[in-house]
């Protein structure tokens, strides 16, 4: 763009481009910095504090990542003798850990858990075959990922001493991949045989 001297400001810039470019810069800062800062500043009561441990029930517990929200609608706490489910959320992802009595083996329970997800998610299809996984406690399990219409998810199961644990994370397309590291970290914190911690 050729610019006449009269159209330039003190910095030698074309006056006509300055304000529109400043407007673009303001929107960039708003989206890239201000909105994330506002989000970090807003902290509702259900925000999970660092060091929190949830007792799911039947002696199973896990340590969530700080900053996620306790999803009370998706939570039915159990206790030492009762099954339960704890749900926590972040940017549209619902991560839930459920414990229940189960006498079968790991493969059998994975089939049951997959069927349950198929009932809940329309047009569910697996995007990776079952793979072996393990918690930090050393309990081995199975994991798989899936897609449905508008939904992405990952499913892991563990079975130990008559207790089965289902770990499911689902959310809008792309959201679960984005939180894959946190989901994996929380899954690894699952402990069997521990209870009486935070509710």
């Amino acid at each position, binding site marked *: *763009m050729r*610019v006449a001297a009269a159209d*330039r400001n003190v910095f*030698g*810039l*074309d006056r006509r*481009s*300055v304000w*529109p*470019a*400043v*407007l*673009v*810069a303001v*929107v*960039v800062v*708003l*989206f*890239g*910095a201000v*909105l*994330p800062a*506002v*989000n970090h500043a*807003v*902290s*509702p009561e259900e*925000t999970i504090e660092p060091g929190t441990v949830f007792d799911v029930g039947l002696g199973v517990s896990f340590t969530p990542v700080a900053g996620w*929200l306790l*999803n009370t*609608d*998706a939570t039915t706490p159990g206790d030492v003798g009762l099954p339960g489910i704890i749900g926590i*959320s*972040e*940017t*549209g992802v619902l991560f839930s850990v459920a414990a229940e009595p189960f006498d079968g083996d790991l493969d059998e329970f994975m089939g049951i858990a997959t069927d349950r997800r198929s009932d809940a*998610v*329309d*047009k569910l299809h697996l*995007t*990776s*075959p079952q*793979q072996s996984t393990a918690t930090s406690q050393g309990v081995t399990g199975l994991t798989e*990922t899936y*897609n*449905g*219409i*508008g*939904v992405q998810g*990952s499913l892991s199961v563990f079975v130990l001493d008559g207790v089965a644990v289902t770990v499911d994370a*689902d*959310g*809008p*397309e*792309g*959201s*679960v*991949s*984005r939180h*894959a590291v946190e989901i994996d970290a929380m899954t690894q914190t699952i402990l069997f045989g521990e209870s009486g911690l935070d509710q």
Partner: protein
Amino acid sequence: MNTVTETDFATAVERSGRSYAFRFVQPHNLAFWLYIVLLPIGIIYMLNLLNGSIRAFPTAFVLNAVLWILYSIPWVLFLRHEEMYDPEPAKLALVGFVWGGFIATWVMAIEANNAIISLVGKLGSPELARDWGPSIAAPFVEETAKAMGVVMLVLLGRRHVRNVFDGAVLGAFVGLGFQVLEDFLYSINAATAAGPGNEMQAVLGQFFGRGFMGGLWSHALYSGIVGAGIAYFVTRTDRSPGQRTGSLMLFAGSAWLLHFVWDSPFVNGTSIAALGMIARFVIYPLIFILAIRWASHQRREELGVLLTGEVALGTLTEEDVELLVMSRHERRKGLRHIKHEDGGAARLDERHRLRAARDLATALAKSHGADSDDVEQARAAIGTIA
């Protein structure tokens, strides 16, 4: 054939935008410096985000890149299609593509989308965030981020944004860049999530799922609409500020609404899958085709104005110009009629004349109607065709 005044001709030349070359490097333009600052930020953000995945799955990365480049090719062909007569400068379209792919995506949308969905969860409920978060955040954030790309193109190549059609095409390129890089991220994430041995399957699944089953070039459609609105606001200075602002809001609102519905549980959810498929494969493409046909009709009228003088000079016949300003469908019928009357060779000659006539129109626009070397060469080329 209607007569064409000098004013009509000058207007057609001005609207063609072909009389000015596009240069990206503009040290006196603040928009240029803003672009130069933001682009490396976007690239670094992307590399930081994808670095681990790319190192872990280099083959999947290459396959991913090849697939999404192939996905972009139809748009490049569209840009260069002869029916366009006056294609946008490739450099300007590339600047728009890069804004959409590296700045709108990584510098603006990714953090803002996450922030808004998270806020919906905190201030509303986690279920609201999961079910409606993307449709609340994405239309606002992504359409605005891409619209800023169109504004940048106007600031960098003002003389090439002469009408609504220019805005639609350039907006579509910003949207295409956004979609390709966003889907590239999804695909590489899916490869990472699928793990070793399954990464290629995951990449292919994402490509067909997001690129085709999820709707063809959806971001290009939205941004094309927004781009048309911005171009209307900028170019239609004969209208009142209220009319221009209202039209801009109408175009932007339409794109926002389409994007909102697309991301909402109505289309993208688990309950009305059939409606979603109809929207993706029938309604949305239809809207896009109608918009392009409408804009293309405006372009053909300008073509007629630029070439009318050539009838008086004897370079072209009235039939040539009439064929050029017809719709593609009508022109095919006209060419079939020529074949029926005068044989296949005559039809082929006429097609060559029409192609050369488009080149002449471009040369006339560049020279503002003067008999430049390009104009004379284009006329000579037409003269060699019987």
